[in-house]
């Protein structure tokens, strides 16, 4: 029931809705009313609720009422609405959808897109004669704002629509966008923001993101009413206190040193609200979900393996589901799983169903073909990765199958939302576990979906490297004063807690690198004039900024080309075939000629790297790929699901809800070892062959486990227990050593507690970070984003002349001479939550303090088998160069003695 009557809509619009057989939805009218009141608003709605139209309706109405532009140069009313989407494709898609009402109602509205593909003459024309509505991406917005004419271009802007806001805010792109939004609000204080989002755990985080956090303008950002459909508007005074306020303390400035990286309980973007300032939130409109999803676990009669991620046993069942549905989306977690699943389904495909493959490494044209066929309803199924997670309209999907671990509750719900785009019908979905642990994870996810529990991540603290990039951009736009820019930056929610010192450090970095040794004053990129304002030094610096804008530092990709073997000269492969797609350079680096791996739906043989391409040939049919795929996914198991999995394990009454094979397995574990309590950490030790093994099950996700493994092996080394290696998965790790770990623990009862004590996040972490390749990769990304080094563009050839510098070398030198430099701080902040997940490791170590249960066994337990099976299948992690070199040297000796 809506409180807003449809009379808000002009007649043209009412007639149009009628002509389509629609009625304006309540939330669409709500947004119209909010726009009339000049308020910013967050719209939270499930897929299929007409979110995008709701976001644009107020602009369409206003523009229709404004009447046609006379089109003369004098009639420059400028840009009215700016729409930002995380995906170029989505912006194009929305523009197309927007054209329909505009054309059908004959509205005098010009809609245009601006993306990396927009030709330069069109870009120039857009600046000269802005459209009414412009659809673009965060990077393009940053470029526009760094333009000398930004002020003029945006001064009449009325509205900003941020699509898929829940996905944007979780990354550095969200930081960049928040800074852009802050600048927009400075240029055009009348702007209101509309955020469109899927359901999230903390809508207030997004509501804060949409309004300036310390505005001097009294008209915006006051305490806002909350609107729920079918619920009375709550007066602001009745608002419950912000839930985060109870659990979150204001974060210290993000100036953490490494030793407390892991200990910061919950870093959050909660701004510091001082004295008279009230919480600044955008209004909220929530569309409750329609019918409950019809979701279940695919239960096979067969026993699932203890490890592995291919779900090979389930393929016939998945194929049957595809056959009996109209259109199916098969989601998997990684590119290689996608390749495998696609191949297996085609082996079964006696009916020749149109099953396609879609993942981020495929050639763009190939992806577009799949997307078009999908839109045209020509496909029976698409096997896809996260690249299809976002809201492009796919038409008539009536089934979603998620193969492998769900990893997160919100994530799985967004995926399920892809089926049945009409929100009042239930979505149908299957979760397909690939191994026994994944049964637990699927069970936990089903419960979460049932309760509509969300586990979207906490709000971010704005990254300093992004801020550095933004500062340079603002200098390109025009002279700025330090205090003004500081206040503007802090009005962006992620940067609300930014300290003056950090801000100054970023400005100093942009100017001269900000080093304690002030060697570069005369080369400064931005300089302070006599008027106290900072300006960019010359046009070349501005050009450098434009080439470097954006926060996505892809792992450098390298093209994969199908080669032709020369008949006359066996062993010679010519790069004559087509490009299959691209793979990460670091993956290519680990391949040796002759290795076979699955790519673009077939098994290929790695022949070598020629110039800047990977050369492969088709492996004979029936060849098994030799190179193991990365198991699991890029996304580690969410803390929320992990806690649920531990709870299910700990409570035998819960076991009844699991498939029988799982219950039997847990009973065996209880007989042979123990099943740990929800907050305990079980550590098992046992001998096997001539090695001693130690396994433990923290359930904190692969990234945190890798870091834990690295640190544990360091400590075991120091304890002279001669660790040989370790493997990690999402649930646990197995460390193996030639020293008797159990024996040591038996003689020294405090040994395990000490081994897992939180102080490993001090010196041990610091020492490891010095050489960690993951840390170096993290640093490289920060260095590129902050503008320390130039971005290397895909396809750009490496030439001897090219000005490149290895960031690994820079990292080594900087770490040694200025360990507190702003870039290193930025990299450490990333490491806390990114590739190293130090923060989660810290939370885990705190949780298990005094709760370690060591169980010495004479042989491997059922639980440990699962992680033991990763040995040989998974990479053995090591950053110890000497170990690798010693092995290679020994190989030479073997050769000599043979």
């Amino acid at each position, binding site marked *: 029931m809506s409180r807003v009557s449809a009379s808000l809509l002009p007649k043209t619009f009412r007639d149009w809705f009628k002509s389509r057989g629609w009625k304006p939805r309540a939330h669409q009218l709500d947004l119209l009313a909010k726009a009339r009141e000049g308020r910013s608003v967050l719209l939270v709605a499930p897929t299929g609720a007409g979110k995008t139209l709701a976001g644009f309706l107020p602009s369409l109405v206003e523009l229709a009422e404004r009447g046609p532009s006379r089109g003369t140069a004098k009639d420059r009313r400028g840009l009215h609405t700016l729409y930002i989407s995380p995906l170029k494709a989505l912006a194009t898609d929305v523009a197309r959808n927007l054209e329909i009402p505009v054309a059908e109602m004959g509205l005098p509205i010009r809609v245009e897109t601006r993306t990396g593909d927009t030709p330069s003459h069109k870009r120039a024309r857009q600046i000269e004669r802005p459209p009414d509505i412009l659809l673009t991406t965060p990077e393009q917005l940053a470029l526009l704002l760094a333009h000398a004419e930004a002020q003029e271009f945006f001064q009449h802007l009325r509205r900003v629509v941020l699509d898929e806001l829940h996905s944007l805010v979780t990354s550095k792109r969200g930081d960049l966008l928040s800074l852009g939004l802050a600048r927009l609000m400075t240029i055009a204080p009348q702007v209101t923001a509309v955020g469109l989002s899927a359901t999230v755990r903390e809508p207030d985080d997004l509501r804060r993101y949409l309004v300036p956090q310390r505005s001097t303008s009294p008209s915006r950002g006051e305490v806002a009413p909350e609107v729920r459909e079918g619920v009375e508007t709550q007066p602001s005074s009745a608002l419950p206190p912000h839930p985060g306020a109870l659990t979150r303390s204001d974060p210290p400035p993000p100036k953490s040193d490494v030793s407390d990286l892991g200990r910061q309980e919950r870093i959050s973007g909660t701004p510091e609200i001082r004295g008279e300032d009230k919480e600044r939130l955008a209004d909220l409109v929530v569309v409750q979900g329609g019918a409950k999803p019809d979701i279940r676990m695919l239960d096979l009669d067969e026993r699932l393996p203890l490890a592995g991620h291919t779900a090979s046993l389930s393929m016939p069942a998945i194929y049957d589901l595809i056959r009996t549905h109209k259109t199916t989306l098969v989601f998997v977690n990684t590119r290689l799983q996608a390749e495998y699943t696609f191949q297996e389904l085609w082996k079964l495909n006696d009916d020749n169903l149109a099953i396609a493959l879609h993942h981020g490494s495929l050639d763009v044209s190939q992806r577009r073909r799949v997307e078009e066929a999908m839109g045209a309803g020509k496909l029976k199924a698409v096997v896809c990765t996260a690249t299809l997670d976002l809201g492009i309209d796919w038409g008539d999907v009536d089934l979603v199958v998620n193969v492998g671990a769900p990893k997160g509750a919100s994530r799985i719900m967004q995926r399920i939302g892809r089926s049945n785009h009409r929100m009042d019908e239930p979505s149908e979905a299957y979760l397909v576990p690939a191994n026994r642990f994944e049964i637990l994870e699927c069970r936990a996810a089903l419960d979460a979906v049932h309760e509509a529990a969300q586990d979207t991540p906490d709000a971010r603290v704005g990254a300093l490297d992004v801020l550095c990039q933004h500062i340079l951009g603002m200098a390109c736009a025009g002279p700025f004063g330090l205090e003004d820019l500081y206040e503007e930056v802090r009005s962006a929610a992620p940067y609300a807690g930014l300290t003056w010192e950090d801000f100054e450090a970023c400005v100093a970095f942009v100017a001269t690198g900000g080093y304690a040794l002030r060697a570069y004053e005369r080369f400064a990129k931005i300089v302070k004039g006599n008027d106290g304002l900072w300006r960019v030094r010359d046009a070349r610096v501005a050009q450098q900024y434009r080439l470097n804008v954006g926060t996505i530092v892809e792992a450098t990709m390298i093209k994969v080309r199908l080669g032709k073997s020369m008949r006359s000269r066996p062993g010679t492969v010519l790069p004559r075939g087509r490009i299959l797609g691209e793979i990460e350079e670091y993956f290519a680096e680990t391949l040796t000629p002759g290795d076979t791996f699955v790519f673009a739906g077939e098994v290929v043989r790695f022949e070598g790297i020629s110039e800047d391409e990977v050369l492969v040939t088709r492996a004979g049919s029936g060849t098994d790929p030799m190179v193991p795929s990365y198991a699991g996914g890029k996304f580690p198991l969410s803390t929320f699901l992990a806690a649920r999995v531990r709870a299910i394990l700990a409570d035998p009454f819960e076991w009844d809800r699991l498939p029988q094979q799982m219950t039997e397995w847990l009973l065996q574990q209880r007989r042979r070892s123990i099943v740990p309590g929800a907050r305990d950490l079980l550590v098992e030790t046992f001998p096997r062959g001539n090695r001693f093994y130690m396994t433990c099950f923290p359930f904190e996700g692969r990234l945190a486990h890798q870091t834990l493994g690295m640190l544990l092996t360091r400590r075991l080394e120091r304890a002279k227990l001669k660790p040989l290696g370790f493997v990690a998965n999402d649930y646990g790790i197995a460390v193996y050593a030639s020293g008797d770990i159990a024996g040591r623990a038996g003689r020294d009862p405090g040994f395990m507690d000490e081994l897992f004590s939180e102080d490993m996040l001090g010196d041990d972490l610091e020492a490891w970070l010095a050489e960690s390749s993951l840390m170096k990769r993290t640093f490289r990304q920060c260095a590129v984003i902050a503008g320390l080094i130039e971005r290397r563009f895909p396809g750009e050839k490496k030439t001897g002349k090219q000005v490149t510098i290895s960031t690994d070398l*820079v990292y080594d030198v900087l770490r040694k001479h200025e360990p507190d430099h702003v870039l290193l701080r930025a990299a450490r902040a990333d490491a806390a939550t990114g590739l190293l997940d130090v923060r989660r490791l810290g939370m885990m170590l705190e949780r298990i303090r005094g709760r370690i249960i060591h169980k010495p066994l004479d042989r491997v337990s059922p639980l440990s088998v699962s992680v033991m099976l990763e040995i040989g299948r998974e990479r053995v992690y090591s950053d110890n160069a000497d170990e690798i070199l010693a092995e290679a040297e020994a190989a*030479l000796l073997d050769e000599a003695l043979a």
Partner: protein
Amino acid sequence: MTALQKNKQTTHEIELKGQLALLDLTGAMYLPAHDALLVADLHFEKGSSFARRGMMLPPYDTRETLLALSDAVFRFNPKTVIALGDSFHDIGGPERLGTEERTTLSEVQQGREWIWVTGNHDRILPDSIGGQVVEEMALGSLTLRHEPMAGEQAEIAGHLHPVGKVVMRGRSTRRRCFLTDGSRCVMPALGAYAGGLNACDAAFKPLFANGFTAHLIGTERIFAIAKSMLCRD
């Protein structure tokens, strides 16, 4: 105690044209027969060279390189030190050298013969940096020059910044290295910001017609790795 005994732990012995050469963890080479220490591609002031073009690399590279250089010099205490070219990243380098770094350099040079071989980055070197400047030179039967030249003549050179990459069971490491076939040696770059060229690159092929052994500089010691064990980037 002789230099040889003192550095037993950190050095790695090879034979070059019949004479003993000690490869040092810093990337330097010591020739006991001549009491000479060789270093290559120091690339002093590469950081400031980049800063001129707007890439503000940490200005500590010269310091770092000098640290390694003085470490090797003071340990071996040689009569002669020979820098095999590209000692400065560009011609303006000597002028940009900071006061502190200039002092350190003089201290290292103190009391020994110091020879700068010129390279493509530093064809001209000012007198103010001390020592003598040569284009190339002979040390017994060995020619010392910046850029290696294919041919029979035994030589020690730099210029190419060789690095070797090793992949063992999915783990990989990429380290600076000495390449040698017993008659020719291409030395690793010593400069803190000097990048590397993979030893599998075609540039090395004409120099080592009969293959080479790569001596990769690890963390604790130097490892002799067969050419067949090296991977491309």
